[in-house]
């Protein structure tokens, strides 16, 4: 359950709309069920009143939409940014993808988001989900009593290692406490590193074999903002529409992770939207962990204008030939 209420946010947005300070509000719109929330653009207080939602399912990172809206819309756009979203926002500003003048950024403290997939995995025919302090009561067609799932169990993967706020100049900051993380985000990466190459190979072979190349991971990613992706471009030499075989699956995911390496803020949207539940964040986190340990800690999007590690270098950088021995030493 979010400590900040939807009313606070929609009220704030409505008053700015009415005052003419902003012309549009980018937020979350309620859906058919309690969990299927859609990012949406609101243009009036009435629309906000009717459809605006802010709850544990308002996971979607809205910052990428600002690229399109700051280009196509003429008025100022209010956007709600959760702490994790501020990193993406900063990174997009760094890469000149957003016209900051056109954005009214409101920081929303977040108490942790719920993973709809985790809740639905064990509940068929959900009719309602009610949020409580401790977790969620899931009402279904098949049971009279609602099933309880605790907040911890249902927590979205990325929230387990919440980064808090980026260093950012927001136009407005809603007061409130931010969810405190409990996990080391590199645990799984290190566990994989400690496996044998065969185990790692089979792990990824199994995960990536499910890929259907729907491109949802790419299309949702706030770092994937190319005008045209190399995988869509027949002239790039690597264009491919389908995950035809295990090579194409790996090619796509390695290159995608490489292209966002150093720019990925670890917002976790790729894994969240994957229809096949492939833990794509483990590829991005691998790069982040390597960058942190080889070249010093770097958090993309923490500061606007910071220089990404792959467009930077140090004369004393680790040699590619030393990488494995060095890391084995670190992990031992």
């Amino acid at each position, binding site marked *: 359950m979010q400590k900040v209420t939807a009313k606070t946010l929609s009220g704030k947005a409505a008053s700015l709309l009415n005052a003419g300070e902003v012309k549009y509000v980018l937020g979350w719109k309620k859906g058919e*069920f309690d969990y299927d929330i859609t990012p*949406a653009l609101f243009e009036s207080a009435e629309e906000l009143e009717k459809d605006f939602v802010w709850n544990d399912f308002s996971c979607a990172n809205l910052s990428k939409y600002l690229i399109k809206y700051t280009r196509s819309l003429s008025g100022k756009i209010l956007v709600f940014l959760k702490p994790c979203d501020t990193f993406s926002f900063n990174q997009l500003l760094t890469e000149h993808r957003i016209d900051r003048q056109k954005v009214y950024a409101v920081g929303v403290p977040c108490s942790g988001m719920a993973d709809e997939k985790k809740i639905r995995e064990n509940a068929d*025919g959900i*009719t309602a989900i009610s949020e409580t302090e401790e977790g969620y009561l899931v009402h279904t067609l098949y049971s009279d009593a609602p099933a309880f799932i605790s907040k911890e169990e249902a927590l979205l993967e990325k929230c387990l290692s919440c980064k808090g706020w980026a260093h950012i100049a927001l136009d407005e900051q809603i007061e409130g406490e931010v969810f405190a993380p409990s996990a080391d985000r590199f645990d799984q990466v290190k566990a994989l590193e400690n496996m044998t190459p065969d185990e790692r190979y089979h792990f990824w072979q199994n995960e990536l074999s499910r890929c259907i190349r729907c491109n*949802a991971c*790419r*299309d949702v990613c706030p770092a994937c903002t190319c005008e045209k992706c190399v995988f869509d471009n027949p002239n790039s030499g690597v264009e491919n529409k389908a995950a*035809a075989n295990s090579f194409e699956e790996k090619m796509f995911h390695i290159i995608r992770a490489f292209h966002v390496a150093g720019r990925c803020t670890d917002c976790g949207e790729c894994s969240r939207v994957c229809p096949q539940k492939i833990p794509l964040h483990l590829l991005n986190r691998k790069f982040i962990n390597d960058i942190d340990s080889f070249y010093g800690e770097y958090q993309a999007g923490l500061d606007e204008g910071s220089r990404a590690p792959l467009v930077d270098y140090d004369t004393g950088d680790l040699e590619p030939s030393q990488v494995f021995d060095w890391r084995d030493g670190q992990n031992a």
Partner: protein
Amino acid sequence: MRKLSLENLNLAFASIAAKYPLYLPQDNSAGDAEYKKWEQGAKWSDKTNTVKSPKDFFFPQTEDLMAFQVSGKSIDIIDTRKESEDFVVFGVRACDVKSFEVLDNVFLTEPADSYYASRREHGIIVSVACTRPLETCFCKAFSIDPSEPAGDVSCYKTDDSLYLSANTEKGEALLAVISEYTEEADDAAVSKQKESINKIMDRLPLASLTPASFGGGKTKEFFDAPEWKSLSEACLGCGTCTFVCPTCQCYDIKDFKTGSGVIRYRCWDSCMYSEFTKMSAGQPRTSQLERFRQRFMHKLVYYPENNNGLFSCVGCGRCLSRCPIHMNIVKVMKALGGKKDE
């Protein structure tokens, strides 16, 4: 009606698998169901839906059509088709069975797609009634009865048994393979199950959904509807809905250069993609709104127009549960007036 004790289910599967490749929904490591080839020890998933629909069996995501072998400056054309064998797809839900009809209309109308036709001919479909429809299910809207699944064999799973009845000759032949494990039974248990399914169907959140206001000839009515803008606003342009959809049938034909030759293959394409049907003059649909509209207009208006009113949606609910931004055909239908007056 034949009855198979669930205790013998594995034995039955084994005897089918001895004769045909047998595919059935199994749980994968991600906790979802997917169609996999049956092997000793495999467990039939309890999940209502698989992530990808079984259309893959007849219209696979990628399929080689032919190949060209280059040697020096001469090119040989090679037929890459292999001799097809019969195969069994087990545990198909009523909605997915219906989807084959939608695909048949596309691929089997003259000129028929011989690749698809061959697979259809060799495929034996064993359907199963849904006992636990999900909140995302709305097959009823398209007049599909999940308690009356079609296919070569229809079956009903109860706590202890599987009731099977053959609907076609292919189905009869399949039942003959497992006859040693089945016995004749009346349909009392089945009727009971049908009744309970129908009760649940009425309680589903989307029970009242209807496509009545859509259909052939409604192009003008919906094409310029202002609602498309807000509906498509958040669409990422990914292909999730298309690729999990049992009825989407668009594909692209591409050449893959292997170095010593070329493989010509086809693969699923998505009308949501910005590169979809790109021609020398560019794309016909340049905005996401147009692409988004195309998908739903096709399902709800264009397809029925060309196919005697049959909608190109079977209400399986896959897009509802998988779309990254939760935009889907139900929201579209409701926004454009598909809700029954209550």
